[in-house]
């Protein structure tokens, strides 16, 4: 019996092709490598959108496939950004400090360099010492490892506590919201060691690559984002197509029943919660160097709720649904809230999209939930099946 992963996930090949074509087109029209039709700003938006698609895949795995409505996965995304941001900010400040001190008569001692870095980075929050949690910020490999380790550990501990006590459904959602809220409030504090509400900034300047223009770097990051998304899609497709995926779907549909077949529901939930947290963190670590800044507002509870809305609109339980939802809604959202959308004069009242977009989004969410519970991908599936019939 043919049971291979590609046979079960035919969308993988189509997806990779579409992704490659989009990235190639963007490169061909870019300022750095092509005709210049596509401004660098748009390349960055594309790159960031690809990262959002990746976290949407993580959300779809945990919610669409396993039925855990986590409203906290953006916390892992933000943490990933913080972890890579620490290196970006530290290493770049170090370069600047050393360059400016090299003009002095005596070469600076390591202590002096560190003090100067501390003042540079933490002056805004009234500090001058480099906090302990920045101990490894000088090392790219260590911070890269921390991108995976810190959010992964947080998810592991949180998930272990929650799943072991069999917290499910809406209670689990509330708990995950509490987690993000707590994390964001903590980060807002000036003495959190992560610059309070200023967050980490200047992340678009990659240490050691400051001579390379942003137009070029943005293309590299876009390719990096596409690669991560492609790998993430294949990985997710592989995970859900085998027996593991069957058990996970069984947990979603009837978790009590699968226990009587001898499966430890808690172990599976913990596994999928943690692995998706890590995917979210990786997506964040690629996103924030393109965004340039990560701050506690990014981790606000509402961000994780939006993530669920994207996946619901796109169609949960289908990987391409999550991708479509994330791309569509996040792009529309930045179009409407960015002030680009023309106002709609009604004579007696003028609809300003900056204010009304939220209403429109909320309304679409309600409509999708009521009339197309399988989202855009579900409607798409129905069309395809009709054609085949």
């Amino acid at each position, binding site marked *: *019996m043919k*049971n291979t992963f590609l046979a079960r996930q035919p969308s993988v090949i189509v997806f990779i092709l579409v992704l490659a074509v989009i990235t190639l087109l963007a490169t061909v029209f870019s300022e750095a490598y092509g005709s210049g039709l596509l401004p660098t700003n748009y390349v960055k938006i594309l790159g960031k959108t690809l990262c959002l698609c990746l976290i949407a895949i993580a959300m779809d795995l945990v919610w669409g496939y396993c039925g855990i409505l986590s409203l906290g996965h953006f916390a892992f995304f933000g943490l990933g950004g913080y972890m890579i941001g620490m290196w970006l900010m530290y290493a770049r400040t170090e370069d600047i400090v050393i360059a400016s001190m090299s003009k002095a008569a005596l070469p600076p001692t390591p202590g002096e360099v560190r003090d100067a870095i501390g003042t540079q980075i933490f002056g805004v929050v009234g500090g001058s010492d480099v906090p302990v949690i920045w101990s490894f910020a000088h090392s790219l490999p260590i911070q890269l490892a921390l991108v995976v380790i810190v959010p992964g550990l947080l998810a592991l501990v949180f998930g272990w506590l929650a799943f072991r006590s069999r917290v499910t459904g809406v209670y689990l959602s509330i708990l995950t919201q509490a987690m993000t809220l707590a994390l964001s409030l903590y980060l807002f504090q000036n003495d959190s060691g992560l610059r309070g509400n200023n967050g980490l900034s200047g992340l678009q300047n990659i240490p050691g690559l400051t001579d390379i223009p942003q137009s070029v770097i943005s293309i590299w990051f876009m390719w990096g984002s596409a690669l991560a998304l492609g790998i993430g899609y294949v990985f997710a497709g592989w*995970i859900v197509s*085998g*027996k*593991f995926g*069957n*058990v996970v*779907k*069984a947990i979603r*549909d*009837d978790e*009590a*029943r*699968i*226990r*009587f*077949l*001898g*499966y*430890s*529901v808690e*172990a*599976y939930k913990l*596994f999928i919660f943690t692995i998706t947290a890590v995917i979210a963190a990786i997506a964040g670590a690629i996103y924030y160097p393109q965004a340039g800044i990560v701050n506690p507002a990014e981790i606000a509870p509402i961000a994780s709720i939006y993530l669920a809305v994207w996946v619901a609109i796109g169609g949960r339980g289908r990987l391409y649904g999550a991708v479509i939802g994330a791309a569509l809604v996040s792009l529309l959202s930045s179009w409407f809230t960015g002030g680009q959308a023309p106002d709609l004069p009604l004579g007696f009242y003028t609809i300003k999209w900056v204010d009304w977009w939220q209403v429109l989004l909320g309304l679409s969410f309600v409509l999708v939930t009521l009339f197309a519970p399988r989202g855009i991908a579900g409607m798409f599936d129905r069309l395809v099946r009709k054609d085949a019939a």
Partner: protein
Amino acid sequence: MSALLEVLGVSVTFDGFRAINDLSFSIQPAELRAIIGPNGAGKTTFMDIVTGKTRPDSGRVQFGTPPVDLLRLRESDIAKIGIGRKFQRPTVFEAQTVFDNLSMALKNERSPFAALGYKADRRDIGRIEEIAAEIGLADHLRRLSGELSHGQKQWLEIGMLLAQDPQLLLVDEPAAGMTLGEREHTTDLLVRTAKTRAVIVVEHDMEFVRRLACPVTVLHEGSVLAEGSLSHVTANPDVIEVYLGR
């Protein structure tokens, strides 16, 4: 020979209502036993206790040699040490194919890592096809189990039970929704299965129980009212009273 399952003085109360009242019960390693009793007698609750779904207020439940205290184990661990269950209302995973349902039930390592690396080998596929043939679903392996008829779902759940290869099978009302021919097939299957393992069957249909030709335990208001052959217990005045007197 020591008992495979030993239930001793178990009681369960739901909001002040005693569903199981000082119940004691035991079964041998290769024995077929039917449990009958009026609606609400506590038959399903008894299975809930053995499989870890319901925790009793008092009493002991032991399984295997050396005896393991089932009351300390989680549902999944109880299933893993060899107790399988078919539910009264057939519960299969409707969004998945018959093949996938059987493959999940198949006796294999249950951890997430094992499941990730799992690939159905020739032996497993052979076993699934064998079971599918046994339960009359050989031509339906690729179908979603949600599309099956009520009787076919019953069969699929019985198939999943067989696939688990348990030492003790708890079968709650297998005949509901089955045709006469299917009932006969089910009794054959259960009798054959009980040659190598213990099987407990709950059933209302007396004809079905008669064909099982095995010892019968009558439950009433949460405890054992009578035990013995079917003709023996049906001649018991208490049993007649319980079945007809209300």
